[in-house]
């Protein structure tokens, strides 16, 4: 609810179904407050569906679904395929020390374009059913927005959340 956003400095948009989240953002009257929060430089972290919501452009989405444009990237929904193609991967992440992060990509979006002012903190190499083996961004960041194609919380590694809280 909009009142609950008062005083918030860091906002996480989690996974789920981006189409359902879009509808509920509107019906809960959160779309404008969250848009304003992003435009005002508030720190945002979007994971999977959350990344889709924060992106500037969505491929294979519904025409009415929300793209807040908080970070200048293009994403393709379900870009790795259906659930049978969901996977875990070990990622080396810029700014995360120690062992690689083991993370879960679940019907995850693929980042197909990274705009100016956006850096890639980690990539994943994946054999796509069509298009062959490609290296694609898994984590991107801009000045105030962090996004990941995967769900860091599913595998219980909180180092990316720590990075979000400490460097944004």
């Amino acid at each position, binding site marked *: 609810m909009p009142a609950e956003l008062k005083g918030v400095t860091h906002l996480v948009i989690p*996974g*789920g*179904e981006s*189409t*359902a989240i879009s*509808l*509920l953002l509107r*019906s*809960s009257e959160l779309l404008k407050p969250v848009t304003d929060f992003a435009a005002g430089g508030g720190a945002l972290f979007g994971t*999977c*569906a959350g990344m889709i919501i924060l992106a500037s452009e969505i491929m*294979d*989405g*519904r025409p009415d679904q929300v793209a807040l444009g908080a970070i200048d990237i293009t994403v393709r*929904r*379900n870009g790795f*395929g*259906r*659930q*049978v*193609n*969901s*996977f*875990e*991967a*070990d*990622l*080396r992440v810029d700014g995360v020390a120690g062992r*690689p992060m083991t993370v*879960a990509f*679940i*019907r995850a979006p693929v980042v197909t374009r990274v705009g100016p002012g956006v850096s890639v903190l980690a990539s*994943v*190499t*994946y*054999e796509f059913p069509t298009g062959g083996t490609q*290296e694609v961004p898994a984590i991107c960041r801009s000045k105030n927005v962090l996004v990941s194609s995967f*769900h860091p919380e*599913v*595998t219980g590694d909180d180092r990316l959340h720590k990075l979000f809280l400490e460097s944004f």
Partner: protein
Amino acid sequence: MTEETAPAVTKATARVKRGLAEMLRGGVIMDVVTADQAKIAEDAGAVAVMALERVPADIRRDGGVARMSDPALVEEIQAAVSIPVMAKARIGHFVEAQILEALQVDYIDESEVLTPADEAYHIDKWRFSVPFVCGATNLGEALRRVSEGAALIRSKGEAGTGNVVEAVRHLRSIVGDIKKITQADSAELHGWAKELRAPYELVAEIAETGKLPVPLFCAGGIATPADAALVMQLGAEACFVGSGIFKSGDPAKRARAIVEATTHYQDATILAKVSRNLGVPMVGIEMDKVDVHLAERGW
């Protein structure tokens, strides 16, 4: 690229299978029998659809053997929507499950709503890459399914009745026993495992975490936004709604209202708002008038 930076990709792990269910939490999964219904469900904010040939109320009315849906129907529904598509296989019918896996459905429901194919064994779900959801009427049944590889449990309720009473009974039984196990000492846990006819390791895990090893959703008889909010307040993490939507007077409106109610299940003001003017609900059946108790299928 060096060995060190080449990421290892592993598919079909338990975490990946349970992970999709975790992403559906707080949402509504709707039974649909056509591509048009699937679109109505997606428009209303469903987090997934269950592709079926007949909703449970019609299976109940028509009788006969209920089987897996025609693959052409499943594919038509997959093409119509961008949200996950689930489909049902008969209890123990691992070949129907193999076919559904070949179709790349996102979840297979080994379901008591269809006519069981095996009276002794459920499907060995560990052998599949696609995750499975299974029904349960009590905690023992839930844990036996988890031990066979189910990545999601739904309380069974009594499908196709529009009557939530059985869903409430099953959910209270599962959640109630979980609460008791968290209070049990280490010796009592062995007694619980014996009483529940469930693996000790899973009982011990519940004692430690206070919840099932996989997400717990609710199904069977949900017909109104208030029903959905009721099962959410009782501890369900999401709802399956079958006949309740497309057997009602205004499916699109009711579907949307049930989605809102599942999201805002603790806010009675919103529940009152979304419950208004929904048209005729599914008629429903009282339990003593039910001929076939689907929940008794499976063990």
